[in-house]
């Protein structure tokens, strides 16, 4: 199993550009999450999904969108990049509401200039 994979590893965007951060898991997990990690601020939940076709907002959803068309994939879309979105983005997955241990991808480092 590859676990949770994320692409790209690093990206530089100009203000106003758009991009999609890819996330995939091969563990047949129902739950998937997107976090951002800023220095000294810990992890903040952006969006999460409890299954294909179902998504919901986390703490900091503004400026982002997600979709979950399959169990395996959970892409995160940035429509109009802003410097405040400079961060490290982590995708995670867990099996169920009862089995909550989350497994994380390696992260995507995004710089918006």
């Amino acid at each position, binding site marked *: 199993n590859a676990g*949770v994979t994320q692409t790209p590893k690093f990206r530089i965007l100009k203000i106003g550009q758009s991009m999609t951060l890819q996330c995939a898991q091969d563990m047949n997990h129902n739950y998937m999450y997107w976090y951002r990690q800023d220095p000294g601020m810990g992890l903040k939940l952006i969006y999460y999904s409890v299954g294909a076709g179902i998504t919901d907002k986390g703490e900091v959803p503004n400026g982002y969108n997600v979709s979950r068309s399959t169990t395996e994939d959970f892409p995160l879309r940035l429509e109009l990049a802003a410097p405040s979105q400079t961060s490290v983005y982590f995708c995670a997955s867990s099996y169920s509401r009862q089995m909550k241990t989350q497994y994380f991808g390696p992260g995507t480092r995004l710089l918006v200039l």
Partner: protein
Amino acid sequence: SQELEQSPQSLIVQEGKNLTINCTSSKTLYGLYWYKQKYGEGLIFLMMLQKGGEEKSHEKITAKLDEKKQQSSLHITASQPSHAGIYLCGADRNYGGSQGNLIFGKGTKLSVKP
């Protein structure tokens, strides 16, 4: 809302020394998760604790959830350079109605000097 506070924020120890990291919650903990993060990498799951008084060990790392279930400690015995990294605690956001969401502490940065 529930908050998790970790202490210390950073720690430098000599190789071979023992150390403890604490995670304190503003509310009762129903599930406490410890993760380790190396610089530039994702979070690696270490251990999960659910019951008050529960203690788990993996190699030289021991985690405990106190009886009142509002604090957890992570203890490393005879630290090694491989233990260096950022340790984060995570907790169930809401009990019962939870959608599996976790909240995280801000992390404790551990450096081990050879």
